């Protein structure tokens, strides 16, 4: 009977030790997870802000004007037709 109590106490102690180690490990892991998620959330927020900026710039009148200039969508680009010329065009004269 005495031996049984002794070994029971030993098992309980061992169990508590394992549980303690497990809890300690779990709390560290949870802390790491929280840290990781915090970083990820921050990163996603950063990316969102960057994307919002890019999107608003691409849909802005400023960008449309810049693009129009690059693509020569200006008054200068209106075509001149040469079909009804009155005078003959002689280069270098």
């Amino acid at each position, binding site marked *: 009977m005495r031996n049984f109590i002794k070994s029971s106490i030993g098992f309980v102690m061992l169990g508590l030790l394992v549980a303690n180690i497990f809890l300690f490990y779990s709390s560290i892991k*949870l802390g790491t997870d929280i840290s990781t998620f915090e970083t990820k959330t921050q990163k996603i927020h*950063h990316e969102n802000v960057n994307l919002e900026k890019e999107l*608003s710039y691409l849909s802005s*009148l*400023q960008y449309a004007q810049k693009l129009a200039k690059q693509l020569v969508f200006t008054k200068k680009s209106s075509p001149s037709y040469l079909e009804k010329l009155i005078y003959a065009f002689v280069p270098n004269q």
Partner: protein
Amino acid sequence: MKTKLLFTGFLVLYLLIIIKLFYLQIISPLKINQDLYLKSQKLNPERGKIFDRNLTPLALNQNSYLLYLEPKKINDKLKLTRFLSEKLDMEEASLEAKIDESKDWISIVSGIDEDKKKEIEGLKISGIGFESQMKRFYPEASLSAHLLGFVGKDKTGEGTGYFGVEGFYNQDLNGLPGLLESERDLAGRPIFIGVQNKVDPENGRDLVLTIDKTVQEIAKKRLSEGIEKYQAKQGCVIIADPGTMAILSLVCLPDYDLDKYFQFSEDFFRNSTVSDVYEPGSIFKPLIMAAAIEEKKIKPQDTYNETGPITVGEYKIKTWNDKYEGKISMTRILEKSSNVGMVYIGEKLGKDKIYQYLEKYGFGESTDIDLQGENSSYLKPKANWYSIDFSTVTFGQGIALTPIQMIRAFAALVNGGNLMKPYVVDKILSAKEEIIIKPKMERKVISDLTSQIIRKMLTSTVENAEAKWDRPQGYKIGGKTGTAQVPIQGHYDPSKTIASFIGFAPADKPKFITLVMLKEPKTSPWGSETAAPIFFEIAKDLIVYYSITPNQ
């Protein structure tokens, strides 16, 4: 025996540990222990965004960084200062002077963008660090500089709005900071079983303006062309919905670069449309005309015999071109902008009524427009008015007012007689609620019938004016020109004028009202030759933009 000894040994050790813990936690708790693990951090809210009426963004937030140095970690000070001065465009000497080696942390410069951060990080120089921040981003650059205002720093270094909407709605846009209290281990990881308190920050409220980005672009483009063409010192355009006085566009040139506001002097920040007072000149005439019609002192078809200059006290009042047409109708007085005709109407109306209507139109009080920096004009007490003041005020001289007051009073003439409060914010949005700003009527100034009559008279003024303009064909447009001389040291300088035009379209049911003002145009001093053509260019663009059908 051995077991007992071991047991007693353990018991004593445990007892010692318990006594030590009791001492540390109860008898003499060390304050440093709390600070060692418990980290408190202020969580900054995001500043509210600003959108135009179609929800296209005018001011957003972008990521930026504060560059700081940790002097104790710097290995090569010379290399670091040389590199940073090149990248940050800073003087090497001033950068070196900032590095105090006795300190742990020194802030160098804020507002660094993502690309520059990556560039600096790429070289892996020890002692340089970055702290995440946010700053304003303007997708349309400085399209609405005076209207928006900018975000600068207050005395404590916190971001705060100055001028325009940023200044007026600073509290709404700022939001409320949050707080994070978190017990962390030495590696910075949260201790799960420790204190973890978080009060989330409340982000600033977003603003939806009454401004239309396209209308703003039209106004700015046409004003810029006009200033260049007529060589004016400065120019402003206000476009509003006359029924509600919701501002559709508000531009003044020259303006400033919102991103580099710190490179400009304070003069550039002044929004002349709300902050500067001026003598309106002839665009004021319809206000007195409407008052006289409302009081049944005149009718549009009444005649006045315009024979020559008239004398009031020691002053002689002439028409702008010193030409006189004899018998003319009240409408013709507006068409030819006759000063002597207006003095006649003023006399019919009477001094008391003139003053009463000036107050009714809202002169002498601020409009309470939601923009920072509004200046309310001063209307001197009636007892201080001389006879000549009552005569000159009928054609817009001897009274000073802001452009926003002028357009508000004029809008009342064409919208059925309602004096409305001008406003630029349509909605205030937050995560919890949406506040809609409704148009506010201050008071009824004239009747609907008088408003109809004055609209017809102003349409006739445009159609039969002395100057001929390139008007949009098929549309009824009403308006009035104005040329006000600038008072300098007690007299008027004829070479310096403020040329203006105020008009509305379509005349029967106005969709927009526009005030164009040019300060000291050099090609011609007259509003009819400078401000009016700009107005008609804007009107042509707006008619297309709003798909207004011809009505003539």
